Each structure stands twice: as structure tokens, then as C-alpha cells.
């Protein structure tokens, strides 16, 4: 018997209409755990770098995490992986909610989709019964509306749904996969789903998930629940309210948005508005939020309430569900207010687009129009009202109508298509992908490495356990390190010392802390994220907030007691490193190199090119990568990834003489 996981994947070929239930190799669980780890392994093995994202040979993988669906509090993430039409690299996005646990209850760890259906279809997974069903009547329907229609059609209100909207059908490069409560939005995975002719996957399961050592396991769960309560009663002192608790940032519960609105950039990642948050705004936004939020809601088996039911009607539905930060992304991109944010977010969700990228693409278009680069000829009938402009652009993007067809490829590709200096307005992408708009003063060397090397192309997927600024007083620093139990073994002294000294005279960025400490700190945060992405535990309870309930000391016990494998802190860290390295290898094989690893030029006003080069050099070295960011033969060997070395040698990506520059492949090619 397999524990925590089911030991079976569903393999669906939409070209042939075939459905197979395939037993998985337990050895892969030992090497990669599951989730993102095994997804990366499958993509490495089965999708050669020549395969275009919109090829029938590209795979679209929906995965549970190793612990997903068990009583492990907050283990509910669905990890979706494929190759991105926008970045041409591995796209990696996840969502909370109920989908992955339902898939496991149905008896599967992953659904692996290949091929392309000639007609629009949806997949219905009901325990052992799996059908590919006609979806022609759902064409053009909103993502939430689709979910409701399928539930009615199947007479199965308990089915969990992952669906695309119009944007996915029209292969918008930042189309999302929507689950109602959550969405997997980054990297254009919804476009790949649309390209495959797959409108939705409905899942219903009523089978057991087994636990290897139940007594030990349930104690661990109870400890985590107790710690969650403890943290609710003991917010971190000396940080803004939005950073003081655990979970996703509590955007739906907290209406004090001073930190986001004054720290992040507005418009096309352009303006800081340090004086924005006034008493008047505070009262107005509080009212708006109280009107909008009907109920705070959770994901599967998690006591946090990071989402909400919102009463702003959207296209096909009277209410929708909102996650954390999308309430502000549209608001800030349009230089508007919270009411607008709630109004447009519901439409955007029905269309199925990424709440980070979409507002920025639209702000980019508005800016180009104001600069005269886009004209009335490009935007016939463009409204004069700012908010209406955003609705107008959204409608055209998701239909790929007129200028919408260009903008549907995202800022990077659109800027190059439009030309006439539009490239200069592409100021907030990394690896061709729009980032959270942050523009700051002094270079932060820790964040420099995270923005540059994080391959999930999203800062929230690598940061988390470190305060973002020094505590203002010695007293607060001492208070913070007092019960900082989450630090890895052997690093306690070093990390606590850093927090205690940070902010003292002479101990400030960019020369503090030392590069080797920076490497340690970044590696720790990255490791924790890679563990979560393999187990399916939500980062909101683990790698993302300060002092989370899950950490490197209890996670090995969770994994051991649930699966029956015995792993300790060192072994778990090594698995995370293996997964992280394999994901990098997948991207290196597609052409990613050092030159791609840089934050936007104006991310910080004060930059230090020499220091930055050194930071990258040292971090690469620390990770066992050469100066191009390519994992070396030696480090690949240590991680039992010799097959990667062999492939790299064959392709000339690595040479036996590691000083030789390596060959570049497909992500290099600019598209027409």
C-alpha cells in the first residue's frame, strides 16, 4: 500500500482520446517527494527542449502534493506545470482550494494531459470512471459560470472544478486556470489548456487516503493547529499589520492598506505614492471592503481565511471569490480606487486572466497611448475615462481583438511588436514575465539574488521568512529572535546575529550582511518553498510568512509519519535541492542563462553593478552552478542527477572543460 499518495497518475491523450491509469514508481517519491518535484522530472524526461509550448507534445500536468488531501492542515495545493508560451521556460503555478484533495480522494496523484483535442472538451474524473466529454456548449463561457454549468450537467454539486475562461480559449499568454476559490495564474498555463482544447477538469472522489504512522502523525497536526492559534494571538511586533500574521497576506480581512499602497508602484510600475494613504482614503476603502466582503473563506482543511466571497456581480455570476492581492493590482495599475478593483477583478476572473500580469499589461498600453506610441488608429473608440479604458482593453485582450491581439502576449512581446520605443516601457518584466510592481531606493542584496534567480518568476514564491526591513529598535530585534525556532540546524547563531545587528550604525544595505550570509539566507527561504511545492502544503502556513507553523524541524516528521519513509532535516534539504536543481536544468536546457537573471533596471534607484555581479557569482557557486548558472557535473552527481549531466554534455551545454562557453538553445530565439 502507498501512504499519503495514491501511487497512480491519470494519463490523458486528447489527440487520441485515450485515458490510462498508470502506477507510479515509488523510487521517484523518495527522490522528489511529489508535486513540483515529480512534475519537473516528468517534463525533463518527456518534453524535449525543442517542443513549443503550443505543441501537442507539450504536457500539462495537474498535480497534488505528496501530503495533499491528508489531515495535514493546509496541504491542499494544486501544482500545475507545463511550458509557458510567454517565457518559453517551465511554467509553474499553483492554487489552493479543494481541487487537489478531491483528485486524491478520486485515487490519483496527478493528471497528465498530452495531445490536442480537435473540439472543445472537458474531463470528468469520478473515482474510477473518467470521461472526455463535449464542451462545445461551454465555448466562450466564463470560468466560474462554466464550473456551475458542469456541476448542473453532471448533477454533482460536490465536483471540484478547474476551468479556463475566454482568455484561455484564445490562448492569451497570461490566461489562468480558475477554481473559483483560487486560481493557477502565472506563466500562461491557461493558454496551454486552451490550446489543448480542454475547457475544464471536473473531479469527484470518495476514496481513502492512507497514513503510515497515524498516532505520531495526528500529534504533529495538533501541534501545528496549536501554533496557528498561538500566532493568531501573538502577531509579530514592529512590522506592518499585513506582515504580522500568518497565511496569505490577509487582504480580505485587513483594510489597512498603507503598506501596499505606499510601498508598491502604481500605474505601469511607475509611481510611488508615499502620501497616498490618508484618513479619508482609509475610511472610504474600509466602507468599500465592508460592502464587498460577504464572508471570509478557507481552503481545504485550513483554518486560515485568506479568501472571501465578494458581492460585486461579474459577467455570468452574481458573486465571485477573491484571493488575496488581486484587490489591489487592478486598483493600483489604473491609478484608481478599491471599488474599481473589486468591479474589474470579477470580470477578469470570469475571463480567466492572471491578476498580476493583466493590470500591468493594460497600464502599459495606457502609458503607450499617453506617450503617443499607440494612437487612435491602434485603439479605435478608446474611451477617455480611465476606468472604462481598462474594461475596454480587457475585453479586447481576452478576445485577441485588434490591439488586444498584440497585448495578449504580455508586455515583453507586445513592446517588441509595437516598436517605436515601446521597449522602454517594458520596465517590470523578468524572464519576459510581469512581476509585482515594486520600485525602491537602495539595492537590497538579499532580494537582488531572489529576484534574479527565482525561477518561479514571482518574488512571493521565494521570499518569506525574513523581515523585509530592520526592526526599528534593539528591543524589537531581541523579541523577534527570542522564539525564532524555524531556523535550520547550525544556522541559529548566524541568523539571529543578523537580525540583532541589522540596522545598527554601519550595518545596512548594500554592504551588509556578508555575501556568504546572504547566500545562506536566500538558500534557506528557497529550500522551504521547494519543500512546500513538493508536499502541497500552502506557503501561507509554511515558507511565506514570518515564523510559520511548518518549518524544517517538523516537516521531516510529517513526511516520515505520513509516508513511512524515514527522512531527517538533512535528507529533506537534499531533496529540495535536487528538485530545485532539476527545475533549473529543465530551463537551462531551454536556453535560460545568466543574462536572463536580472531584476528590472529601475527596480532600485541605487544600483551597484560590481557588487551585483559578485552576488550572482557567489550564489551560483554556493548552489553548485557554474558562472552561467548551469549546474556543474559534480553537483549534479551529488544529487543523483547524472542523467542531466549526460544530456548537458551531449548537447554541449556543459563541456568536460567547464571554462568553455556553452551553446544556447530555444528560449534564445526571438519570435516573429
Amino acid at each position, binding site marked *: 500500500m502507498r501512504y499519503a499518495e495514491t501511487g497512480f497518475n491519470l494519463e490523458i491523450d486528447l489527440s487520441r482520446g485515450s485515458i490510462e491509469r498508470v502506477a507510479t514508481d515509488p523510487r521517484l517519491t523518495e527522490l522528489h517527494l511529489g508535486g513540483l518535484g515529480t512534475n519537473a522530472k516528468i517534463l525533463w524526461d518527456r518534453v524535449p527542449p525543442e517542443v513549443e509550448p503550443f505543441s501537442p507534445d507539450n504536457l500539462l500536468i495537474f498535480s497534488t502534493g505528496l501530503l495533499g*488531501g491528508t489531515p495535514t492542515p493546509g496541504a491542499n495545493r494544486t501544482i500545475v506545470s507545463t511550458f509557458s508560451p510567454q517565457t518559453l521556460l517551465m511554467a509553474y503555478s499553483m492554487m489552493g482550494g*479543494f481541487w487537489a484533495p478531491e483528485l486524491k*480522494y478520486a485515487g490519483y496523484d496527478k493528471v497528465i494531459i498530452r495531445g490536442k483535442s480537435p473540439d472543445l472538451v472537458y474531463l470528468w474524473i469520478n473515482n474510477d470512471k473518467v470521461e472526455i466529454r463535449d464542451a462545445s456548449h461551454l465555448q466562450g463561457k466564463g470560468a466560474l459560470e462554466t464550473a456551475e454549468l458542469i456541476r448542473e450537467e453532471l448533477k454533482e454539486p460536490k465536483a471540484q472544478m478547474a476551468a479556463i475562461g475566454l482568455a484561455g480559449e484564445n490562448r492569451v499568454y497570461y490566461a489562468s486556470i480558475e477554481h473559483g476559490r483560487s486560481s493557477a495564474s502565472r506563466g500562461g498555463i491557461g493558454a496551454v489548456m486552451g490550446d489543448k482544447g480542454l475547457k475544464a477538469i471536473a473531479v469527484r472522489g470518495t476514496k481513502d487516503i492512507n497514513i503510515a504512522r497515524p498516532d505520531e502523525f495526528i500529534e504533529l497536526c495538533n501541534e501545528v493547529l496549536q501554533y496557528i492559534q498561538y500566532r493568531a494571538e501573538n502577531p509579530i511586533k514592529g512590522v506592518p499589520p499585513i506582515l504580522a500574521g500568518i497565511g496569505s497576506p490577509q487582504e480580505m480581512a485587513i483594510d489597512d492598506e498603507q503598506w501596499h499602497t505606499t510601498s508598491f508602484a502604481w500605474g505601469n510600475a511607475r509611481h510611488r505614492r508615499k502620501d497616498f494613504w490618508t484618513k479619508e482614503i482609509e475610511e472610504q476603502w474600509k466602507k468599500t471592503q465592508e460592502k464587498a466582503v460577504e464572508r471570509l473563506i*478557507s481552503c481545504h482543511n485550513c*483554518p486560515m*481565511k485568506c479568501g472571501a*466571497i465578494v458581492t460585486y456581480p461579474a459577467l455570468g455570476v452574481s*458573486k465571485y471569490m477573491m484571493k488575496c492581492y488581486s484587490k489591489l493590482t487592478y486598483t493600483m495599475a489604473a491609478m484608481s480606487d478599491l471599488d474599481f478593483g473589486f468591479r474589474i477583478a470579477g470580470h477578469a476572473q470570469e475571463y480567466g486572466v492572471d491578476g498580476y500580469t493583466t493590470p500591468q499589461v493594460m497600464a502599459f498600453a495606457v502609458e503607450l497611448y499617453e506617450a503617443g506610441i499607440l494612437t487612435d488608429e491602434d485603439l479605435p473608440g478608446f474611451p477617455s475615462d480611465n476606468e472604462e479604458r481598462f474594461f475596454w482593453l480587457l475585453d479586447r485582450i481576452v478576445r485577441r481583438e485588434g490591439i488586444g491581439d498584440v497585448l495578449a502576449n504580455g508586455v515583453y512581446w507586445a513592446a517588441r511588436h509595437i516598436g517605436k520605443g515601446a521597449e522602454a516601457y517594458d520596465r517590470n518584466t523578468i524572464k519576459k514575465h510581469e512581476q509585482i510592481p515594486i520600485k525602491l531606493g537602495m539595492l537590497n542584496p538579499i532580494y537582488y539574488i531572489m529576484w534574479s534567480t527565482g525561477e518561479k518568476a514571482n518574488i512571493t514564491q521565494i521570499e518569506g521568512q525574513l523581515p523585509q526591513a530592520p526592526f526599528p529598535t534593539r528591543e524589537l530585534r531581541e523579541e523577534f529572535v527570542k522564539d525564532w525556532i524555524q531556523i535550520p540546524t547550525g544556522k541559529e547563531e548566524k541568523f539571529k546575529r543578523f537580525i540583532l545587528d541589522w540596522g545598527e550604525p554601519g550595518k545596512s544595505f548594500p554592504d551588509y550582511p556578508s555575501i556568504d550570509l546572504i547566500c545562506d539566507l536566500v538558500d534557506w527561504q528557497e529550500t522551504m518553498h521547494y519543500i512546500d511545492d513538493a508536499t502541497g502544503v500552502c506557503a501561507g502556513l509554511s515558507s511565506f510568512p514570518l515564523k510559520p507553523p511548518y518549518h524544517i524541524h517538523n516537516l521531516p516528521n510529517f513526511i516520515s509519519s505520513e509516508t513511512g519513509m524515514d527522512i531527517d532535516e538533512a535528507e529533506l534539504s537534499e531533496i529540495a535541492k535536487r528538485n530545485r536543481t532539476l527545475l533549473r536544468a529543465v530551463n537551462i536546457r531551454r536556453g535560460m542563462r545568466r543574462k536572463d537573471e536580472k531584476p528590472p533596471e529601475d527596480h532600485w534607484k541605487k544600483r551597484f553593478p560590481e557588487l551585483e555581479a559578485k552576488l550572482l557569482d557567489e550564489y551560483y557557486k554556493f548552489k553548485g552552478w557554474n558562472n552561467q548558472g548551469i549546474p556543474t557535473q559534480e553537483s549534479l552527481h551529488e544529487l543523483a542527477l547524472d542523467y542531466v549531466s549526460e544530456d548537458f554534455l551531449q548537447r554541449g551545454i556543459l563541456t568536460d572543460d567547464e571554462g568553455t562557453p556553452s551553446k544556447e538553445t530555444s528560449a534564445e530565439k526571438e519570435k516573429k
Partner: protein
Amino acid sequence: MKGEKKKKIVKTIKVDADKCNGCRACEVVCSAFHAAPKYSSNNPARSRIRVIHEPLKDVYLPVYAGEYAPAECAGRDKYTIDGKEYDECDFCRASCPSRDLFKEPDSGLPLKCDMCEDDPPQKEPLCVQWCLNDALTYEEREEEVEEEEVEREKLEIGLESLANEYGLDKIIDTVARMSQKG
């Protein structure tokens, strides 16, 4: 005979539907607690509490499994409370032929909440312990109940069931006939 007042502990779970966030931890831990061995598996389909939830109607309602009902009832009405529409069935605890709720998924046998009877006893049912948002709270209430009339003897219980089947007159005739033969 006059009944005496007697104190009795009544175990109850209070449901505050306004506080439910729909995480379904109650379903997960209920099914795990009732697995054999305890916590060795979980499966909400086996849970004795289910959250009736329709997010887009803002309906969130935890319901406990109660008595088994051999046949459907006539309840098909709709209730509107605070502008939200509920089916009558949403409030019903019965394991009933009209729905798949509260039935073992393999055998179809009915499930019923047992308040997590355990040895040693749990301080609260597991669903309450795992509901950190207090949608579910446990309450022990002391109630004064009328003492039942004198405990009936086995013979009387046996005779009553015979009477139910054959009618009291027939029993009396039979007893009379038997005593004459005596």
C-alpha cells in the same frame, strides 16, 4: 406512580453557520478519527459531519449525521433566511435514500455522529477541536428530566410485543386456556 426529577448531562454541538469558512477540516478529522486504526486514513465521504456549501450563494452549513431514515420524506420545501435560499434537506441529519450524504461509500450503510465516544474520553468531539474558527462549539448541558416510571420487567416487555402482534384479547384468551389446562 409519580415520576421523580433527575439530572442528566446532554452533549450538544452548537453550530454557528456565520462563522463557517468552509474549510471542511471537520469532515477530514471526523473521517480520520473513525478510521480503524484511528487516524490511519481519511475520506470526507465517510464523515459524520458534512458542510453543505454553495459558495456563490454564500450557503455554508455544517450538518451532523443523525438517525437513519428508511424512506424519503415529503420535505421538498425551500427556506429563505437572510436572503439566502436553503433546501429543506440542507438542515436534515438523516441518512436517507434521497441523497448520498451520511452513507459509507463502499457499503451504503448509514453513518451517525457518536460525539467521538472514546476511551479515554476526548475533551470535545474532534470536529470541534479542529474548528479553530468556532463555527462548531461543544456544550454540555445539564437537564432535569422526568424520571421514567418504574423499570418494567422483562415479562411485561415480552408480553407487550406479543400483544402488539396478536392483540391483547388473544393473549388473555390464551393465558386463560393455558391456566385451565394447568
